[in-house]
């Protein structure tokens, strides 16, 4: 899959006009996706990116791979269909928080049960941007962003907890203004064997005036001595956090510490890898048990007809067996 020649982020750029608001956190996610694919030396035609609906979903128009801009909430099952049909493709799936955790919440839970080898990224800004700033499933209880008439009456789901409970085997969180770190997370998520979920904190400069770039960066609380901001976002790895399940007996311990870390919010917001467990068979491996040719000759690549359109599937014996097995 990897290329020998140098691959540059610009190899993944398109000339499509970008219509995000200035300062949108999505720019950081776009840039890091292009960088991560280039650093992993991916061939553009072997990558398919599936998105839902919303500002996040527009990302794929700016990345020169195969892609589908699908329906609100349905990117995950669509991406699963692409991957199942051709497991030789590298599949990424992009959603917003409303897209992935509200209307698409059922699919979020069920994706964890499958452990398909793909990366799912949620652009997490707490609001429905494209429909003018309504509260999304990740906006906290009592928070009133500028387009809300009243403080949020619902509480937020915790994407990290939900992903862990659903069975995601790699769970991470990034911040769209920490480019280098986010590239590293994307690369790890793409390379993880199994279903990886990456929550990306992504300020919406137009509608979320609470969880802003300045708020994440701690501009409102400066160190008394140095006068420097005290960022709310910190990196798990800087504190020696080890998310890896090194052997199956460790699953409980590692999941518990991930859940504990995922509760942190407000003054200290962890980013990095919360959990990584490669001891669960991927869905591809499970299919391989039933269809031994699955990886080498996957559904989308099987030849179903001869040169003159004659079918390659011979059903004579099957129908004989189905009908007259006992004869």
């Amino acid at each position: 899959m990897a290329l020998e020649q140098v691959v540059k982020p610009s190899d993944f750029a398109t000339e499509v006009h970008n219509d995000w608001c200035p300062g949108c956190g999505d720019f950081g996610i776009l840039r890091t996706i292009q960088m991560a694919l280039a650093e992993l030396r991916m061939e553009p035609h072997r990558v398919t990116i599936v998105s839902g609906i919303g500002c996040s979903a527009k990302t794929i128009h700016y990345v020169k791979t195969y892609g589908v801009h699908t329906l609100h909430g349905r990117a995950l099952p669509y991406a699963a269909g692409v991957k199942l049909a051709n497991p030789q493709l590298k599949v990424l799936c992009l959603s917003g928080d409303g897209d992935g955790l509200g209307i698409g919440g059922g699919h979020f839970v069920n994706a964890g049960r499958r452990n398909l080898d793909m990366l799912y990224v949620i652009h997490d800004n707490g609001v429905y941007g494209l429909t003018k700033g309504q509260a999304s499933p990740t906006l906290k209880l009592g928070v009133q962003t500028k387009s809300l008439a009243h403080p949020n009456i619902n509480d937020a789901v915790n994407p990290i907890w939900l992903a862990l409970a659903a069975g995601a085997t790699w769970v991470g969180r990034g911040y769209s203004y920490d480019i280098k770190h986010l590239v590293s997370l994307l690369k790890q998520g793409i390379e993880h064997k199994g279903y990886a979920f990456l929550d990306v904190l992504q300020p919406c400069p137009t509608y979320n005036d609470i969880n802003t770039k300045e708020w994440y960066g701690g501009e409102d609380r400066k160190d008394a001595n140095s006068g420097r901001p005290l960022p709310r976002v910190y990196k798990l790895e800087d504190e020696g956090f080890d998310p890896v399940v090194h052997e199956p007996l460790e699953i409980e311990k590692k999941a518990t510490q991930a859940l504990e870390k995922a509760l942190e919010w407000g003054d200290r917001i962890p980013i990095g890898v919360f959990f990584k467990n490669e001891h669960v068979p991927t869905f591809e491996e499970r299919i391989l048990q039933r269809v031994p040719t699955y990886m080498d000759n996957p559904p989308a690549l099987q030849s179903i007809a001869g040169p003159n359109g004659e079918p390659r599937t011979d059903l004579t014996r099957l129908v004989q067996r189905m009908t007259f097995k006992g004869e």
Partner: protein
Amino acid sequence: MSKRDLALRVGGAAGDGVSSTAESFAKISARSGLHTWTYSSYQSVIRGGHVWTQVRGGLDPLLSHGDDPDVVLCLNQQTMDVHQADVLEGGAIIYDVDSVKPDPTKIRKNVRLIGISLRKKAQTLSPNALMRNTVALGAAVALFAMDFRHVESAFKDIWGDKKPEIVQQNVAAARLGGDAVKDLGGPLPLGLAYPNQAKYLMTGNEAVCLGALAAGVKFLAQYPMTPASSILHWMASHGPKYGVVVKQVEDELAAMNMAVGAGFAGVRSMTATSGGGFCLMVEAIGQAGMTETPLVAVLVQRSGPSTGLPTKTEQGDLNLALGAGQGDWPRAILAPRHPEECFSLTAKAFNLAEIYQTPIIVISDLYLGEGYRTVDKLDFNVPIVRGMMAADGGTAKDFKRYEITESGVSPRALPGTKGYQFIGATDEHMESGELISDVLAGLPEFVEERRKMHEKRMRKLDGLRKDSPPPEMWGSRNADLTLINWGSTWGAAHEAILQVEEKEGMKVNSLEFPTIFPFHVDEAQKLLRGVKQSLAVEGNYTGQFARLLRAETGYKPDHFYGRYDGEPFASRDIADKILEVVA
């Protein structure tokens, strides 16, 4: 004159083994060389309630599961109470003499009562009396004077080669029932000469699966829903041998989206459901229309509205299929009449889906989907046409995924093909796939672009119409009355026509539509020109097809006969209706 057909009705509570007993008898009937047709009346319960299955066998091709049976096999008292009056003169009732009591005042004359100690006899072979059904089945086989060789063969079919002891025990149990009949007067004097040339036996749903396999399907995503679930079960059992990935998913939203995603990746992909599930799929099927992705959706109808009667039949989802999804998008709706067409039209649907890069709906119903029918011949050599691929002729440099063409079909590229990367979008888009929905919407140039793109997609309807089977007129020329029908109603309609032609000397024919949409307006109008008087027969309240016919051709059927009580059409009811409207 000796009879040319027979019918056995098996009844009991859910969990009694009614369907397996009836299925065994259907297999025995098909092995005896009879054309065979079954109908199961069952309920949405796991245990208890009252369920029955009728198996009809005939020396001539059958058109329905028939009316009153020759033999009723009662696995409980309720079956006796409900069905004893239906048994034809000269027939018989099989029951457990130790626990079930017939009411002779309700039974027609000359019906034999075959009371056997079913449970006690079964207990001589195994203490739990599990095989009492098999004892009764053996009695039925003996009453119909069928060859016991077929019993063993049918059991091998069911239990396979892996459990020879179960097959042998059941054969022994059936023999106990057969021997009991000898002591109770022997076979019925029906005089059927069995050809003993085995015939294929399958349900409409199995025929759909075979058609899909023959056409090269390699992906099925489905959520269980009666009466479409057997497609999932069958494909899960048989698909993997043919490299098919079968995925049971979390809901019908996922089923359709996953199937579309797989189609985008280039595999022949399908999903199947019933009305309620199809409701959840409508946004995603429209997505496939907009992104020009091939897909086959099988809609096996049951009684609605809403949850309706999950185990009962109806043809009430035609409007749903016609109107599924917001906006206009090109689709074809094919309506098989019998298992042969479940096979051939499903296979055809895969070609149409790829040639025209759009969803094709195959619409059947519970009666057709779940009933067993014998099938004379299926042509497995279905031609496969995969449609226009960019890499076959064009170059990557000037590739436009949604190029505007006269046919409306644009060159397709599959993920993994070097240099042809594109973005498919459910938003309106340009030939390249780039959006015109956002910052370009409403600008004069893009108002025009949108119009052209929409027209391009919709032009596919012309090709779909040309490549789909036209309406057919069956029966007499210059008929006094024409029945207008679609789908599984075909059989009862033909049978009713044969009845009134024989008994009343009338001339009636039948106008049928294997393709519902795109509507074959010219062909329909041509056939309608010779119609003197018409009766639309369909399994719904509003006459969904009759309304479509009127909308497309301006022709209003003179009479309408709708059935919406959950039961399939009975030929004698259609015959009565024919007499009523012609008189």
